[in-house]
């Protein structure tokens, strides 16, 4: 009963998310197929870990469609560019590539200098490279001018706005700045040719993106237009990669990262150790071997604590502090969390936490609990713990 309830909530969350990001997907020029794939994958994973039950009608329907999308979509994606695989309408992308159907949709195109116009005669710019039009344009002039067939995105970049020509100084500054960031991006996408094709084929998509891009001012190179308007926080292409990987890292190390935040570097051992340098003292329990050495080494140090501590700082303190933070028991507890499904976890919001002596009381709300392999949701919870 309870679990089917959870399942219902989860499914409604999935539906809610999918329906609400649909607009974003459209704005980004990503087809519904990708969204469906996302939903299918997500629900499949949920089914696998038992978070939702498979016997809900809607889920079944989705499951069926999962097979469909899984069969059709993924292979296409792998071969093609990021978002493009979804657009069925590009059955013959080559035609699109060679003769962009809507060249007029990039009004900026016109300002191009006549000499360079040849390079830009395919103006379809995908959002991917929009972030750094300037550097690409510049590359186009320098690099692609020499070797136009390298397949670099520059030829297809949205043409530079007129101000570029008017203010070469600004260009230079930006280029130097942008290019450094652009490089890793290139490294990441080793098949520029394929990418370019896809981008070129995206004449349609461009239409969607441009309204956002033009008004936002092509001045700032990192703005890729598509993100600027829709996203609450501006995420540029490069940033998004970093942000995304940081999110992924955070998921993995979220608990551990908390510990180092509390610095124990208050020089505990300064006075303390001098007074209690006898090795048999309980403090040994959480000492590192390094500190034991400190104990052993200098008996005279007691008399002159300062110099010894200075030396000790170099050799012994860092490991000592790290270990202090990791308190053995806690470490064990958190290690356990790395094992999926074995760790019991409650994620919630607290309204109030109070303590009287060793008695803790807390009221929580809106929680997700993962206990004994099952998910349980609650609206309110009260906790009474003794410490």
């Amino acid at each position, binding site marked *: 009963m*309870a679990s089917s309830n959870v399942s219902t909530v989860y499914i409604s969350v999935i539906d809610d998310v999918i329906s609400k*990001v649909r607009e974003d997907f459209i704005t980004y020029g990503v087809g519904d197929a990708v969204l469906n794939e996302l939903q299918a994958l997500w629900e499949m994973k*949920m089914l696998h870990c038992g978070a939702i039950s498979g016997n809900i009608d809607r889920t079944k329907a989705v499951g069926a469609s999962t097979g469909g999308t899984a069969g059709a979509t993924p292979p296409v994606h792998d071969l093609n560019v*990021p978002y493009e695989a979804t657009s069925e309408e590009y059955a013959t992308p080559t035609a699109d590539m060679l003769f962009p159907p809507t060249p007029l949709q990039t009004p900026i195109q016109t300002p191009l200098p006549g000499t360079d116009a040849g390079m830009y005669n395919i103006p379809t710019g995908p959002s991917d490279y929009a972030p750094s039009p300037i550097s690409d344009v510049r590359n186009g002039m320098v690099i692609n001018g020499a070797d136009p067939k390298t397949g670099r995105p520059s030829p297809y970049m949205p043409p530079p706005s007129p101000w570029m020509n008017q203010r070469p100084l600004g260009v230079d500054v930006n280029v130097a700045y942008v290019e450094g960031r652009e490089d890793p991006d290139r490294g990441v996408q080793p098949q520029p040719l394929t990418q370019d094709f896809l981008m070129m084929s995206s004449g349609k998509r461009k239409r969607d993106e441009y309204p956002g891009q033009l008004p936002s001012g092509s001045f700032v190179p990192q703005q890729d237009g598509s993100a600027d308007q829709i996203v609450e926080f501006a995420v540029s292409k490069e940033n998004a990669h970093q942000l*995304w990987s940081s999110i992924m890292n955070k998921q993995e190390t979220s608990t551990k990262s908390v510990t180092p935040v509390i610095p124990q570097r208050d020089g505990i051992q300064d006075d303390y150790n001098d007074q209690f340098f006898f090795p048999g003292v309980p403090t040994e329990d959480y000492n590192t071997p390094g500190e034991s050495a400190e104990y052993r080494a200098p008996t005279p140090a007691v008399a002159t604590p300062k110099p010894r501590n200075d030396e000790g700082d170099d050799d012994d303190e860092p490991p000592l502090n790290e270990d202090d933070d990791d308190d053995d028991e806690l470490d064990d507890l958190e290690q356990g969390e790395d094992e999926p499904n074995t760790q019991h976890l*409650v994620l*919630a919001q607290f309204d109030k936490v109070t303590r009287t002596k060793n008695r803790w009381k*807390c009221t929580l709300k809106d929680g997700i609990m*993962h206990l004994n392999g099952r998910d349980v949701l609650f609206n309110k919870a009260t906790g009474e713990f003794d*410490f």
Partner: protein
Amino acid sequence: MATFELYRRSTIGMCLTETLDEMVSSGTLSPELAIQVLVQFDKSMTDALENQVKSKVNIKGHLHTYRFCDNVWTFILTDAQFKNDDNTEQVGKVKIVACDSKLLSQ
């Protein structure tokens, strides 16, 4: 609207994150969009918990560790008992992570 990223660590959130990560790695999805989806998930999950879930739970246990950092309470309980209307779960060790609910209303 403010949201917590807290729920991303739940089963449903992890499933979503994995899915997005796979799609980003395969190039199907751009990272920007993936982040958008996660942000939307934060909202939707918070919303669903607030409006669709009615159950109450009682928690008892021995508090092994407590920590309050950056407005987040973390409790590690041992021998904890979770009671709701129709069920009682007993676990040897559980971690509770709770964000300040007041932050959401701001």
